[in-house]
């Protein structure tokens, strides 16, 4: 067991620090540019240096480096320390780019990948529909090929970033007579056209991270399809062996825990800091057991990934564990804010630290989202039971061959 990264990686860390000292923040005239322009400029240089977009071939704007999870982790750490822009985030780089790399036509890759990884093109995801959540394959948005264009009608939901997005990758039912999973195509849609109506979906916290997207006679060229007609389900399930950040979730729960301890030190209970209260101390120490177990599981998964070995059940559990911790932190935090528990949720962007007491009210609510977004807790438990423990599949799940 060795929690350092070893000499090779410490050498890389040295290189990175030199590069970052030189390259960020930008100097002189460049420092006068707006942030997005500065970030794009920096990302381009970091990619040329081989530090960003490492799994993307050079011809699509990447740095085409050998996959190595530890290298990726060290880069993330050093970029984080220097507060330098990392790879362009978002659903485009996370999902669309890997899908195009594996399944796209050459012209599609050339057209969309470079802009996506530079951050110039942004994407949104058109999967879920109001009637199709866990049972995604029952989706109803129709696509009809009329002449050389797809004409798309339907409604998507839980679409993050739809206002800003240039394009949507959209699961669309194009073969209405085919079996459920075989009737879906993976289409790319220009969001900046008439017929695309984006309506923010307000959450219980008052914020609006998600949207509904109404598609009325929306058009896409016939060849803006990834994979063949009817292959959309499989295309959307493409799992790519790219460098995954397996300790991100655990880092996030550690951050929330640290914030919770600070809260308990800041607020008072019975005339003393709440953290002196025996009940609070038990709750915090109990939660810390979960937080540390999660964190070490992240290290373990990272180590196993780096050896090309499986971390067993852990990867299947990360989301559920993260959700449990986040909810428990929300409950403890909510109990600590005293009469501010009557207040509306404050700023609490997902993935950031709660701010002030109303931030903890927000955490109390938004942590519930973890049980819902991206597969409900019950679906997570199904996956753990079936794929992890080898228990038989549900009758209902059997109906959904693709899940």
């Amino acid at each position, binding site marked *: 067991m060795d929690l350092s990264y070893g000499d090779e990686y410490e050498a890389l860390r040295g290189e990175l620090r030199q590069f970052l000292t030189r390259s960020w923040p930008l100097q002189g005239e460049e420092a006068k540019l707006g942030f997005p322009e500065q970030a794009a400029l920096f990302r381009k240089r970091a990619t040329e240096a081989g530090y960003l977009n490492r799994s993307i071939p050079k011809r699509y704007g990447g740095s085409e480096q050998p996959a190595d999870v530890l290298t990726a982790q060290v880069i993330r750490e050093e970029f984080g320390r220097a507060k330098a822009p990392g790879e362009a985030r978002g659903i485009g780089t996370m999902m669309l780019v890997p899908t195009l790399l594996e399944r796209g036509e050459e012209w599609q890759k050339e057209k969309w990948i470079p802009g996506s990884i530079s951050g110039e093109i942004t994407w949104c995801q058109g999967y879920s529909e109001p009637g199709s959540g866990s049972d995604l394959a029952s989706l109803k948005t129709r696509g009809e090929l009329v002449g050389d264009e797809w004409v798309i009608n339907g409604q998507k939901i839980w679409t993050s970033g739809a206002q800003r997005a240039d394009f949507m990758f959209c699961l669309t039912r194009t073969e209405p007579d085919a079996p459920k999973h075989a009737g879906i195509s993976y289409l790319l849609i220009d969001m900046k056209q008439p017929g695309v109506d984006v309506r923010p979906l307000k959450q219980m916290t008052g914020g609006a991270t998600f949207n509904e997207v109404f598609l009325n006679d929306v058009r896409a060229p016939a060849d803006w399809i990834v994979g063949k007609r009817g292959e959309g389900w499989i295309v959307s399930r493409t799992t790519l062996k790219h460098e995954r950040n397996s300790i991100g979730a655990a880092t996030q729960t550690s951050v929330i825990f640290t914030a919770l301890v600070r809260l308990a030190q800041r607020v008072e209970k019975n005339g003393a800091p709440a953290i002196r209260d025996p009940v609070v101390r038990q709750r915090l120490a109990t939660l810390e057991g979960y937080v540390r177990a999660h964190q070490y599981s992240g290290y373990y998964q990272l180590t196993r990934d780096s050896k090309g070995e499986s971390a067993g059940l852990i990867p299947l559990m990360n989301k559920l564990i993260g959700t449990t911790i986040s909810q428990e932190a929300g409950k403890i935090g909510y109990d600590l804010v005293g009469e501010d528990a*009557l207040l509306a949720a404050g700023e609490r962007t997902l993935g950031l630290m709660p701010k002030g007491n109303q931030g903890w009210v927000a955490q109390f609510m938004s942590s519930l989202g973890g049980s819902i977004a991206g597969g409900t807790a*019950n679906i997570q438990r199904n996956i753990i039971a079936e794929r992890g423990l080898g228990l038989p599949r549900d009758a209902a799940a059997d109906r959904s061959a693709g899940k």
Partner: protein
Amino acid sequence: MNFDLSEEQLLLQETVGQFVANECPPTRLRELFDADDGFDSVLWKGMIELGLGGITLPDEFGGAGLEMLDLAVVSEVLGHACAPGPFVPHSLAGLAIALGGSDEQKQRWLPRLASGETLGTVAICESGDRWQLEEWALAADGTLTGEKLHVPFASNADLLVVGVAGGGLVLVERDSTGVSVEEIDGADRTRRLFRVTFDGASCEPLPEGVAAAPRLRDAGLVLLAADAFGAARRLVDMSVEYAQTREQFGVTIGHFQALKHQLANMAVEVEPCRGLYWYAAHAFDHVAEEAERSAALAKSHITDRAMQVARDAVEAHGGIGFTWECDVQIWFKRVMFDRAFLGAPAFHRERAAQLAGW
């Protein structure tokens, strides 16, 4: 042995339930929830006409002369419907005067409170989660200077019953000089909250305020427990209904055993709570030595159970449960109010432990 509501109480619940169902269906509720001004004077007038302004006030002052249990069963119905309005603080204000006021004060205020001519509320929270009479620091030296937090519907109220240092109560007319109110960004928009600032405002002590204040607290605990019980029952019903209608994988999701068991667990948490608030309300009038502790246990147990059930209800509704447009969030925040107002469950559990001599 009759541990059940009387015919009259059941009728009262039905009448009020019917009234709110008609006058404040979910569409109207949502409008009020989202409105800038959350006070619906028509709805409130209707409640007053049903006699809800003075249920426990003596007949001689225009009240119905009924008991805490009658008041509490109405609170349950209003929680079930999530009915917006000042029912709880108005009831508490009346009760405070009935229990702590001079004859003259009773004669002046109680008929007006019962008839709804005057809207009453209570100002009993100070910064630092200080809801308890022992903790009040606002001094009443003829006039008041200082502030109270989380005063429900203060901008609509005419009369404030204010807790003051020493554990007593004073009356303040809201439109008197030196009283200003400012809305607080509360979660539960069915019961709007205000910060009330007093700057040399004139006030009038209730002569028996020190005796009335603990009764006011116990009554408040019972009414919040009842409200939370009603809200929690509704949240269970909403979740069951959703499971019976929402389809996935070609069947309603109520077919999935894991969800069925989650819904069963929610019902098991809520259903037995009924008697806790009934008994606490009954004890308020009839079992003096158990009144205080029963109220503390009812409030702490029921609001805690209801809060967890509200969280479970969000999950049971899937993605839609997490949105503003789903009704679950309205009841969720109702329960947040019931749980936090007058102090959190853990606080009242510790009180219950002390009262038991543990």
